């Protein structure tokens, strides 16, 4: 009876076992690593808007405050998008026949709101409230990035649960004085009160901020 397996069979067997082990390991690693990538989280992607609005021009160039357009950000869960009337405050006077603003004028004439597309979104099972964050010392920049540099608005942070928890587990170091909330490029300076002082000033810390029901209701 001829030999059942050639001498090479051992090599083939060992190589296949190793190859399967490598494939499974690297597959798992890829699977775990994938959600961490900016690509998976769509960080840095601009989203097509009905009118190409430039935060860079309006914030850095003209010095308009965030709240001029996002007027309910301090009081409401929603930061809110401005009604077309807010745009027309200025654009009824300047750039009145700019082609790029045709959509705004159209919306104004038809009395239908602009369909702005949300750039920074969290899943529907997350109850994010702008008011509590802004009034308790979290700057807009902490989640939205430096919008003053964005010619077209894009998502600046991953907004994973890890991202939220990094702050909820240690809120103090991310808080800033009330007068700096709307600064788009703020850095801690020696005269800034320390994390503990800010926590005390905003009365943060009475409740465990990592309880499930803080964000999931």
């Amino acid at each position, binding site marked *: 009876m001829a030999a059942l397996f050639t001498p090479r069979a051992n090599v083939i067997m060992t190589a296949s076992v190793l190859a399967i082990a490598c494939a499974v390991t690297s597959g798992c690693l890829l699977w775990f690593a994938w*959600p961490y990538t900016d690509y998976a989280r769509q960080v840095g992607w601009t989203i097509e808007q009905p009118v190409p609005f430039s935060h860079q021009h309006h914030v850095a160039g003209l010095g308009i405050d965030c709240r001029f357009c996002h007027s309910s950000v301090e009081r409401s869960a929603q930061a809110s998008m401005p009604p077309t009337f807010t745009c027309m405050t200025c654009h009824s006077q300047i750039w009145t026949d700019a082609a790029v603003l045709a959509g705004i004028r159209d919306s104004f004439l038809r009395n239908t709101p602009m369909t702005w597309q949300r750039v920074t979104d969290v899943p529907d099972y997350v109850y994010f409230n702008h008011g509590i964050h802004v009034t308790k010392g979290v700057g807009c920049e902490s989640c939205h990035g430096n919008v003053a540099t964005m010619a077209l608005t894009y998502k600046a942070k991953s907004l*994973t*649960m890890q991202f939220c928890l990094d702050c909820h587990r240690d809120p103090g170091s991310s808080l800033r004085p009330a007068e700096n909330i709307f600064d788009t490029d703020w850095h801690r300076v020696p005269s800034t009160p320390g994390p503990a002082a800010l926590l005390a000033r905003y009365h943060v810390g009475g409740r465990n901020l990592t309880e499930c029901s803080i964000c999931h209701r």
Partner: protein
Amino acid sequence: MTGRIVHPGETPWSMTERVCVTTLRPDAGLWTPLWWWLCLGMALALLAGGVVSVAWLFYAGLGIWGIDWPVAWGFDILNYVWWIAIASGGTFISALFFLLRAPWRTSLNRLAESLTLCAALCAAIFPILHLGRPQFFYWLFPYPNTMGLWAQFRSPLVWDFFAILAYVLCSVLFWYFGLLPDLATLRERAQRRWQRVFYGVLALGFRGSARQWRHYQPVYGVMAALMAPLVVSVHSIVGMDFAGGAATGWHSTQFPPFFVFGAGLSGFAIVLLAVIPLRPALGLQPYITDWHIDVLGRLLLTASLCVAYAYVMDVFSTFYGPDQADRTMFAFRLHGLYAPVYWGTIMLNIVFPQLLWWRGVRMKQPVVWAICLGVLVGMWLERFQIIVSSLARTQLQSAWGQYTPTLWEWSLLAGTIGLFLTAFLLLVRFIPMLAMAEMRAVLEDRP
């Protein structure tokens, strides 16, 4: 001693011949017997029902089951605990009695371990199916993730995940490792090419050289030493899944040993249940003698007495303890809606097995078989009683309720029985059900 565990006149040669013929069927006249095909057909029919049930579950969600508030654990956990307890028999016999050097265990271990694998496979299905989103079962595993979440190591449910995983992996390895020399024997004796390649690949190049045996035996011993505590830990942790919860009737320190006793009882019952018909069907009477049935019957009786002790302590701690809610729940068990379940448990697990005190009964295999079938039903009823009647009678009267399983839960249970039988029948057909290499040692030792 050896006269009782092997028929006289058997040699290593005749034993190997007998087992290999059953597995390899070299002669065209020796087709796979009809009983095998009939059983397989029945098993596949049950399995098909289970597949439909699971498919519908994945499509429609957990709402198709009868579980609801307050009885949020129903057939899913019940059947999981039942199956994993059934799986224990193989490990008790092959690992524990290997360490104890019990010579009778040699002819039973392959069969018992194969039963373990099939039952563990069925058990592993339920915890995954009972998740609302089964695709996320791996969230129990501590792996780095963007949610910033880590497994809750204070929860017995997480220990359960690790215990089951370790138990299933080690059971598979132990079974396969023990099988290697026999696969090599089959490879050498096979006539058809596909058989030689099939068993040859599975034998992983085992040639029976002295060097291989010198490594093989210590490793087998170490694996047995690992398996014996694992079977205790896995059932203790299943018990803690309940004891860790503050539900009435669950929050008891005796639960871990109670579940180990229950596992022993169902484990020995399934081994007897399979051995009694398979012995004549595979022609194994010379190696699995009446004396083996006798030993297993005595083990079953011992396990039944252990379980009886746990039942008595359950009653004692409830009525000796201070908790009125526990007593109300227990009264509900004794004469409430599910009272037949409680009394059925007592009859099938405790009362009927007492017949095994008599040697005459232990020698009557149909009676032993019926008692074992009763024990398996009884153990199932016991899980029903623990899970459902506790959840149906919680501390607050306003949260009382009841549970009625739906067709989909019954068909899933039947489906896992089908899966168990299908897997076991395939193993019976293609894998030697007698550990030939170990049996040779027993036969050669004979004076």
